[in-house]
């Protein structure tokens, strides 16, 4: 039992989260999806994110679902993201079902709820494919191409750059609390509850020191960005063009588009 709880605890550790975040962002840059041009993927995403909401045929939706499930599989997404996805889908449909029964629904409500769930699932999986499959820099360049402000595009890439540092800092501050503070005894249900409250409390207390430490660090970063010409580049259109020159569509993009279209067409044919 002890071992099991330790393993469970391990899964919720910041270290694990940090690893999963990194894995999700950068651990899959050798997949097929990662080789596709970010612009192709973004267009693809708009299509697959919107289309399901205008379709009602379960077979068609199921076809789309299988397709995005395959693309998600191809991105080698981190297990934590998949877990969150399943958890989200199940709880959402579960609660809809319970609410509908509460208001006098019967088994017949199950059908529409399933269709609804399928639509949400398709959109979510398409998002996972695009946002996990692309590493943040490529995503940022893609967004930049579509005219998104540079500050926003840069902050996506930069957030991933400092996220690991941030999480490590947070982890260490939490540890300071845990090691020096006195955690309540976690025996029995009341103990477990007390322990949970305690955990939440120290997480809250850790935020202020975290913010202060980050503020201290960011001073250098801000100065360095200035020195390294970040602001200068922002005011210059030619440099933006140079940045985007590294994007390029290739055969992978063509294949990906063809496969997507054929699959969709096939689905429509079957229906």
């Amino acid at each position, binding site marked *: 039992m*002890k*071992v099991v709880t*330790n393993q469970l605890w*391990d899964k919720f550790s910041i*270290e*694990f989260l940090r*690893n999963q975040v*990194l*894995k999700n962002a*950068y*651990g899959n840059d050798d997949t097929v999806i990662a080789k596709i041009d970010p612009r192709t993927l973004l267009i693809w995403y708009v299509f697959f994110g919107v289309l399901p909401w205008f379709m009602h045929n379960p077979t068609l939706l199921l076809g789309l679902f299988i397709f995005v499930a395959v693309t998600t599989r191809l991105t080698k997404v981190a297990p934590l993201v998949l877990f969150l996805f399943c958890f989200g889908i199940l709880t959402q449909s579960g609660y809809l079902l319970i609410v509908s029964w509460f208001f006098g629904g019967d088994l017949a409500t199950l059908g529409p709820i399933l269709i609804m769930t399928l639509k949400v699932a398709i959109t979510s999986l398409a998002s996972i494919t695009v946002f996990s499959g692309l*590493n*943040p*820099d490529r995503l940022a360049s893609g967004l930049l191409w579509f005219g998104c402000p540079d500050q926003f595009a840069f902050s996506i*890439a*930069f957030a*991933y*750059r400092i996220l*690991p*540092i941030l999480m490590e*800092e947070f982890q*260490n*501050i939490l*540890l*300071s*609390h*845990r*090691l*020096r*503070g*006195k*955690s309540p005894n976690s025996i029995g249900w009341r103990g477990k509850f007390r322990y949970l409250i305690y955990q939440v409390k120290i997480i809250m*207390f*850790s935020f202020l*020191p975290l913010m*202060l*430490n980050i503020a*201290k*660090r*960011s*001073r*250098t*970063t801000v*100065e*360095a*960005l*200035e*020195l*390294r*010409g*970040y602001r*200068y*580049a922002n005011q*210059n259109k*030619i*440099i933006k063009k*140079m*940045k985007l020159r590294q994007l390029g569509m290739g055969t992978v993009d063509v294949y990906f588009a063809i496969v997507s279209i054929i699959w969709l067409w096939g689905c429509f044919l079957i229906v």
Partner: protein
Amino acid sequence: MIKITDLHFTYPGAAIATLNGVDLEILQGEFIAIIGNNGSGKSTLCKTLNGLIPNFIVGEGSGSVTYNGEDLWKMPIGEIANCIGYVYQDFENQIVCPTVSEDAAFSCLNYGHEDYVKKGLDALVLCDLLDKKDDYIWQLSGGQLHLLALAGALALAPDVLILDEPIAQLDPAHATQMYETLKELNEVHGKTIIVIEHHSEYIAEYCHNAILLHEGRVLWKKDARSALRECQQLIDCHIFPPQITVAAQQIQQKSGWKQDQLLPTTIAEGKKFFEKMGILPDFKVRQEVMNSQLAIQLSNIDVQYRSVKGESKSLFTNFNLKIFAGDKIALIGSNGAGKTTLMKLLVGLLKPKSGTIMLNGTDVTALRAEQIAAHISLVYQNPEQMLIKESVRADIEFAMKERDIANYKQQAQALITLFQLDAIAESDGRLLSGGQMRRASLAIGIALEPPILLLDEPTANLDIATRQEIIRTLDLLKDTIETVVIATHDMQLVCEFANRIIVLADGEVIGDGPREVIFNNQAVRRQAGIEPPAIYQMAEQLGGSAYTIAEFVQAYQKELCV
């Protein structure tokens, strides 16, 4: 090349000027060190050269700074960046892109150089990082990160490079690599290099000239060797000259023995100097007795790390170690050898995949970190992360208060007095200087009087004067805390503090014993990249052994004074 005349600068809101009439000339191709105690204006001076002052940091300034005759303060910051590169002391915050090649090319791209990719790669070649170009930055070690920060600045091909404490966080092997890189840039590529440096051994070895800055003024500019011979003046400014110079000066003073030769600054010079004295020093060998009561026992430990890509990596395989009560252990080894992992294991932050950890005879393998926190305490490398309350006093009191220790207030006060924190006890720890923050973190770490204390790099990132102060503070701990383990690169600290040295390499103990054993073992020294302190190397050259300046001087005193 760079000419500074009567430069004054005051930060907004500051009562006194940080720069107070600096006059300085730096020539093309110079390799120059700026020395001075904390707060003497070194970093500020450098920031006036890279355009951050006055373009980005506003304040009151007067005087002139010219670069090849052009007024630097009138140039746009982008133009300055193409002439003068800057590497920060906290270099990791200077790196803004996730991959190595991108970060190296970042500035070139921003300033619109068409061939930015090539320029980035060229800079990586200069810094010997080309084989890492596709790596993500968190895969790099501290030393490599520092080289990357340098590459990022180098990519713009500036003629001048300014580095703020380039080796503060590096182990000796990487520090030497850093300076060799700088030397090559200077000699082969003709770059002018300006370093802010505390390590006088490196100044003696690599720099041509040195500038002493004191209270915002340049006291002098001399060639590096003669600069370091100004022992007394340097010590008055809280800068420590090379160990060999200090030892030679002390021997001269104590013996009254005069010789017209100049004080030595490097080992080669020292050899001539001491041999000329014609006295055979009497180096005594000290043998410490090992305590026999077991405090910690690690047996058959396996540890694995999750990696971002692919399989977990195994760091420790069948690892065994015994630590005895009363041990003062220095844990050494290059970056990534497993020092931090071992410390995490000991305090229970990391659980081994298999194996057992016994603490004072109890099996603590499965216990949570908070359950053993009262018996073993860890002081982090980064003291900011130990400061979780609004004031230093509250931080020291915190652990005792939580554990309902009755007279916690008095005990905290006693610690504050012991660590000389009275004047700053009520301020937020983050605003303190590096040394003060470190002292505070030590006081916090021992508040619960743990029988075992672990310290991760207690002297990293400190100037030498503060380092001496911390080493003295650690001496205070010797009586309070029974068993101490210090993970460190600082060989002076190792020599002055430890009675047992454990050398780690790739997750294995490759050397274990008193300093006499470890430093005499050439194979271990090579494998772990250990560079003994200069004073030891000096004594070694003279056919004896001494680990501290005091021991070295004593060896001569016996001969001279009696």
